[in-house]
């Protein structure tokens, strides 16, 4: 019987009595995420109901935030610094502001540079692609094991109370209660990294994006939308400023229903185990000061190559020098972002021919606004905006007026939208893009 496995088939609870219940709960969690999305996306399916018939279909993207590259196009150090700054997001449950820290690294890869023992340079850099949902679920079933894993991968100084919430916080559509696992704990924010913290870096967001992206869209002239950012804007999935979301979205969209005349639709799903992965680092870019490559310095420590969940750049045992003598592309290593720019991320889709008819082109359910500058649209960050809302404030111009006819919504501009009006799913992404 089909069952959703933990990311990269991790077996963090091997040999523990909590394992079976956790695996059941994890399957139920992912299945629930799929079930919520399938209703609005006929070409999206879950392997719980139908088997996929294809091999894994990888979709890759770069780990460094494209939004920060757009903001600092000619100043690499500025963008690396920006990536290292923590942001805050309000996760209050009662109206009283409750700012929680998160990393502004929004390409489903986050990192932390631990200082060397003398504090004078970087000692090691840890990269993660692990979704917070996994850790929340793991802690629900075996909090002690979570503490052990933090002690192994983050710091031996971690104690259980460090990882517990001091008050209720909102998370996704739910609430995490006081005393339970705190995904924004200091060891996963200001003092280290265990898993993703950016509010949009979640597995739920990945599943939502993949599902919404299966719907083919048209602009107000009736022409199919086949350009990545336009599709992200018009479909209201993900963040149009990332390299990941528009890339995943258009790949899914054109695979589910090709733009070729007479194309046969394919149903699409995310391959089991569902996760976002560190694929690999570009070969040869990490060198010593004499340009000699340093094999073995960057290694996957949770997951495997192609399905990495945590990776570490550090001197291997026996190394005679540290990261202070390391170069990235011939430039002295000073920031984790330098390395992230060389990391490839990946997710895996799968397909099946389930006999669905060619889907109709749906009208857009949202649009994007941009600043009023002469800089071309592809070089500025956009603000996802509901179809019925006009562009205003810092982003007064419609980036792609053809999506909804400017301020007018789909009903007024391109005929009634066949899909239900969906609210922007990831407003918080703007914190990373424009904060």
């Amino acid at each position, binding site marked *: 019987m089909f069952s959703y496995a933990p990311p990269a088939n991790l077996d963090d609870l091997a040999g523990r009595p909590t394992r079976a219940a956790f695996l059941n709960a994890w399957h139920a969690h992912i299945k629930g995420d799929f079930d919520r999305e399938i209703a609005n996306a006929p070409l999206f399916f879950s392997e719980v109901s139908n088997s996929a018939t294809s091999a894994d279909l990888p979709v890759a993207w770069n780990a460094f935030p494209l939004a920060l590259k757009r903001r600092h196009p000619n100043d690499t150090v500025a963008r690396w610094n920006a990536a290292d700054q923590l942001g805050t997001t309000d996760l209050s449950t009662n109206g009283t502001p409750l700012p929680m820290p998160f990393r502004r690294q929004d390409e489903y890869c986050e990192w932390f540079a631990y200082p060397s023992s003398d504090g004078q340079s970087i000692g090691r850099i840890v990269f993660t692609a692990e979704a917070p949902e996994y850790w929340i679920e793991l802690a629900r079933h075996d909090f002690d094991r979570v503490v052990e894993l933090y002690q192994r991968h983050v710091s031996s100084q971690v104690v259980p109370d460090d990882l517990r919430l001091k008050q209720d916080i909102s998370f996704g559509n739910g609430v995490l209660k006081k005393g339970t696992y705190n995904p924004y704990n200091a060891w996963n924010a200001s003092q280290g990294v265990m898993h993703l913290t950016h509010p949009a870096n979640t597995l739920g967001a990945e599943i939502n994006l993949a599902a919404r992206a299966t719907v083919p869209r048209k602009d107000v002239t009736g022409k199919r939308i086949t350009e990545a950012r336009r599709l992200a804007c018009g479909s209201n999935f993900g963040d149009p400023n990332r390299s990941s979301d528009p890339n995943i979205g258009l*790949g899914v969209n054109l695979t589910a229903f090709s733009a070729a005349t007479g*194309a046969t639709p394919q149903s699409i799903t995310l391959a089991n185990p569902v996760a976002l992965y560190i694929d690999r680092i570009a070969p*040869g870019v990490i060198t010593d000061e004499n340009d000699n490559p340093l094999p073995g310095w960057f290694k996957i420590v949770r997951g495997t190559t192609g399905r990495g969940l945590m990776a570490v750049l550090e001197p291997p045992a026996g190394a005679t020098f540290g990261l202070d003598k390391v170069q990235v592309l011939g430039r002295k290593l000073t920031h984790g972002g330098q390395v992230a720019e060389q990391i490839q991320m990946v997710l895996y889709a799968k397909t099946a021919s389930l006999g669905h008819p060619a889907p109709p082109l749906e009208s857009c359910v949202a649009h994007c606004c941009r600043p009023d500058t002469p800089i071309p649209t592809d070089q500025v960050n956009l603000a996802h905006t509901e179809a019925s809302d006009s562009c205003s404030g810092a982003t007064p111009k419609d980036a792609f007026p053809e999506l909804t006819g400017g301020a007018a919504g789909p009903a007024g501009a391109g005929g009634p939208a066949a899909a239900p009006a969906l609210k922007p799913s990831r407003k918080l992404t703007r914190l990373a893009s424009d904060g």
Partner: protein
Amino acid sequence: MADDPEPLLDAGDIQGNILPGFNRNEQYFVAFSCDNKEALQNALAALRPRLTTLLTALDHRDERKQAFKAGFGRPRRGDLWLNLALGPRASDALGAGTVRVLDQAFDTGMKANITGDPTATKLTDGTPNPAHRDNWAVGSRSKPVDLFLIFAHDQNIEEEAEPIVEQASVLLGAAPNYREKAAVLPGGIEHFGFRDGVSQAGVRGYIREGELKRLLTTRYGVPSRNGIDFGKPGQPLVWPGQFLTGQPNYLGDNPGLTPEFSNGSFLVFRRLSQDVAAFDSDTVVMARELSEASGQPISPEELRARIVGRFRSGAALMRHEQDPGQAEGPDEINYFAFGIEEPSIVLADGTAVKGSPADPDVLRGRRCPVWSHIRKVNPRDLVTDISDEPQTLRFQMLRRGIPFGLPYDRENPESAENQKERGLLFLSYQRSIENQFSNLNRRWMNSATGPQAGGFDLLVGQAVGEDSGLYDSKSALFFRPSPTGDEIGTPVNSPRQWVTPTGGAFLFAPSITFIDTFAPARVA
């Protein structure tokens, strides 16, 4: 957007191989090592009156166009053309250290961590590895390229150029450490036999010819798509700041460079040796293995076309399922995308241009593989691991490559001539080596997962073993062309490296104003 005002370029200040490109029958490349300020100044001042600018090269492009329309062959000229470029030591010596600041890769040099070249100095049998920089024919660490001369003519290039080389040698106090003749092969092919240099971006901007202003790139009335304008069908227009220092990247952009550092371009020079015999024989074996494994016969020639993304004639797989056997005209040969259909259109002069289909399964690449060379280096309308179509367009370079060595004689494989070295002198001009050449080369050609996952660029990509520092075999996933079925794919592996770097350098091709500023004319 086509009516937007575009910048006026100083056609007398920009070297002609940058824009619009030399495109003569023969070229001759000469490199010197010299970091003596006075010697460099003397040589540059002497070469300065001989330099060929955009104006002259554009005139020749007009002649070629007219000859093509009239049905004549390539016109021949009797004049010798010359362009030059400098290495970082030379720009430093001249007091122009600012050039290093303009491009990080120029500053650090052509290192393996940028190019993806092999890092082992020796092969497994202990002999020097010709692909390692230390052993290169040009641009090795012991013989840095400080001054690089590019001559062009239509015949007898060496005879025409040597007197100037001799003069430069005297002024520099150093003999050339590299000389190489290159020549266009019949049909405009590269040594594997495929038409080369087919796809180039168009550059926005005007130049002044007497009292008249003319566009650098002719507009043929191709409809814009998703905010991208075109010259010819399939020739997107980009701003000159993508190739020239100090020029705008969009309307209203002001890079703020002083005149002496403007109108230059960063030049990537790569001497790429081609093993034609290995390409021919390996693809026979690969096609046989692929046919057996996939259950669908594929001929070596079909596989070769998929490796390139075009048939030998230059006809793109996205436009033709079978080799049409003859070259398409310039209005059609590049008119295709990968993910979308290009509609049939009528140009401003009434010429009808047939459209092209979309790939029915674009992530797998059934019609044109994900890993075909032309899709690797220019995924056109598709999203990539880095970003989207407008960003892909910003990575494009002005390619000015030309073959060296004699054509491979396939009729007489054992001939002595076939044992000699041949290949391509790859030259590309760009504003940013790091953002353009480096992205295309390292992130895409040398990667199985960029710009989209599915395999290596089997033609020219380099897969180097992390521990060995030597070439590994490269793999890709082949999907049968039918739009349905075969959701698994069949691995295809190229066992040997058919194209290896045997020289190269990151250089700066300065403006005429730069030379006048840093190497003013000598008083006799």
